[in-house]
């Protein structure tokens, strides 16, 4: 029983890392209708921004944290302006967006390898590595902080989308961008805001990932998992992305803990495929349009 509870805590912790990454993914998808593969690269930059903020600029952690997510918000908007906007204006097929996104992702990874180097780096110990014991279950201090920050960010995001004018504009654009533009919504600005928010979430995810593990140029690869989690939860749905991520984290942990760690990815993904076969829109997805 103690092991089961511990494994659930482990699963929640791993799932919340996926969730922070998956929400940014899902948000961009809901408006742009394509998978922004450069998201992983932006997450990686967030981890490096935070790392150099603390070590090189000697900033206190909150300042480095802000630097990281402001930096990635700007980076994400830049990527949109350079890699996607020209395609948007030419009404290029969605396949071109995906190829452009992959190009951006490879570019981001390699620019880090070429300038900073391929070796991994470690965040200085900010919150301490100790954990809090709840009976037989150990909960990491960083996990708790990460969980709280993620909850605040995600609630804030939902409130923003539901309650503000801009949020309604995002919803309208997500529903039908052309119609929204005809109704007087500045869709160009909506796209920019969406990328800025996605970039901020990526920056936050990057800093936490870097602190929890390490910083290296291939961090972006982990977004494959969060992408799958987003599809599982229902692409385009923010609560779906969170739910899918948490479930994926728990399934992975339980498979590794009770069956075999070698079968972890195999079984986790077979379950995901199974869900998609019976429910192609994911758990909370709404539309059934063909979206790549």
């Amino acid at each position, binding site marked *: 029983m*103690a*092991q089961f509870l*511990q*494994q659930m805590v*482990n*699963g929640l*912790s*791993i799932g919340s890392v996926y969730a922070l990454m998956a929400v940014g993914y899902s948000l961009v998808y809901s408006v742009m209708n394509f998978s922004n593969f450069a998201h992983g690269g932006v997450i990686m930059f967030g981890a490096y921004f935070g790392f150099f903020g603390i070590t090189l600029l000697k900033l206190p952690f909150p300042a480095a944290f802000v630097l990281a997510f402001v930096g990635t918000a700007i980076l994400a908007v830049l990527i949109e302006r350079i890699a996607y906007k020209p395609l948007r204006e030419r009404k290029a097929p969605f396949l071109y967006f995906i190829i452009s996104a992959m190009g951006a992702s490879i570019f981001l990874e390699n620019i880090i390898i070429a300038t900073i180097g391929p070796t*991994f780096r*470690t965040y200085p*110990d900010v919150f301490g*590595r*100790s*954990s809090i*014991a709840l009976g037989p279950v*150990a909960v*990491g201090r960083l996990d708790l902080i990460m969980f709280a920050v993620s909850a605040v960010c995600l609630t804030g995001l939902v409130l923003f989308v539901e309650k503000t004018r801009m949020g309604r504009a995002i919803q309208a654009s997500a529903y039908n961008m052309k119609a929204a533009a005809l109704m007087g919504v500045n869709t160009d600005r909506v796209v920019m805001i969406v990328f800025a928010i996605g970039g901020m979430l990526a920056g936050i995810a990057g800093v936490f990932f870097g602190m*929890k*593990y*390490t910083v290296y140029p*291939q961090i972006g*690869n*982990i977004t494959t998992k969060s992408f799958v989690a987003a599809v599982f939860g229902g692409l385009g749905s923010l609560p779906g992305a969170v739910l899918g991520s948490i479930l994926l984290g728990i399934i*992975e*942990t*339980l498979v*590794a*803990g*009770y069956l075999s*760690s*070698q079968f*972890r*990815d195999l079984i986790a993904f077979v379950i995901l495929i199974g869900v998609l076969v019976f429910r192609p829109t994911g758990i909370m997805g709404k539309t059934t349009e063909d979206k790549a």
Partner: protein
Amino acid sequence: MRVRNFAAALLVALVLISCGGAKQADVIKVGWFGALTGDQAVWGNNEYNTVKMLFEEINAAGGVKVGDKTYTLEAVGYDNKGDAQEAVNVVRRLTSQDKVVAILGPNASGNAIPIAPILEGAKVPDIATVATNPKVTVLDGKVKPYNFRVCFIDPYQGAVAAGFAYDVLKARKAAILYDVSDDYSQGLRQFFVENFKKYGGEIVADESFKSGDVDFRPQLSKIKAQNPDIIFMPYFFKEVALSANQARELGMTQVLMGGDGWPSDQLISMGAAAVEGSYFVNHLDYDDPDVADYKARYFKKYGIQTELNGYLVHDAVLMLVDALKRAGEPTGEAIAKALETTNIKGITGTIKISAQTHNPEGKDAAIIKIVGGKYVFQQKYAAK
């Protein structure tokens, strides 16, 4: 005038020829190759410098007696730039052009594996230095007749760790976490499991991960539930630091053990308190009193510290000299035959070559403990 000049010239020439002839008979040429340029140049230069220094010392002390004659040793070294293709070329040149009787090096397994056919054609033995891949001397279960090595093979570290854990640390229940996508890690794990069971110990958990994974808590939680005495972690320092931190976070206090993938500054800076009190297996330790003399001689001659490679090529030279003395004649075939029965005491431990594998069997490994963020030499240990 002209005739006298001619006669003088002839005389000089004759003297030169006879001198050269006499000299050639007393010299044994030994080849060396490795990387003198490129990424691995530090190690290559370190090896070649050590070989030259030792040959000078041997020659100054009167040379080596082979059969009834005494010879001096001459090193012929070539740069293969750490490249496997180039390794084949330089070995061909050493055997056909320079007619060396034996070759020392290289340090890399990838360069030592492809040279076997040329050695066999020329009947010249080679002693590799830090080439730890099992395939350097044995391929498909058959020993390569002219390939030898002075270091122990990778998986052997697993056997050493198992013996040390059972014998010295008195561990009876062991858990393993290893990288399933890495040959090195799998080899160490296999030897650890086999040996730990042979001693009478129990493997209570055998968990794996894949290269690139960063979270090991599911596996560690499973290991924790089995309450082992030690945890064996045969992989590289990055994953070691991550998994050690996560184990401590989960409240696990077990002693951790590993192999030569551990030592690195990063391990200490990243693992900090989590790896304190852990043990790992290495080829040798620089603070071991047995290596102090060579270390000092090298520093005196070249003004820089020797590397790991230097210690092993030092013992490769000892192996070769011992084999020459017993060979009876300075030919590659006779030396190879003598090398098969090598049993000498080197500075890196006892080197007893097995005729079946051409590896040193039961060679001492160094056990290192992490104390106060430093690598502290504990003792030498050989698996039985």
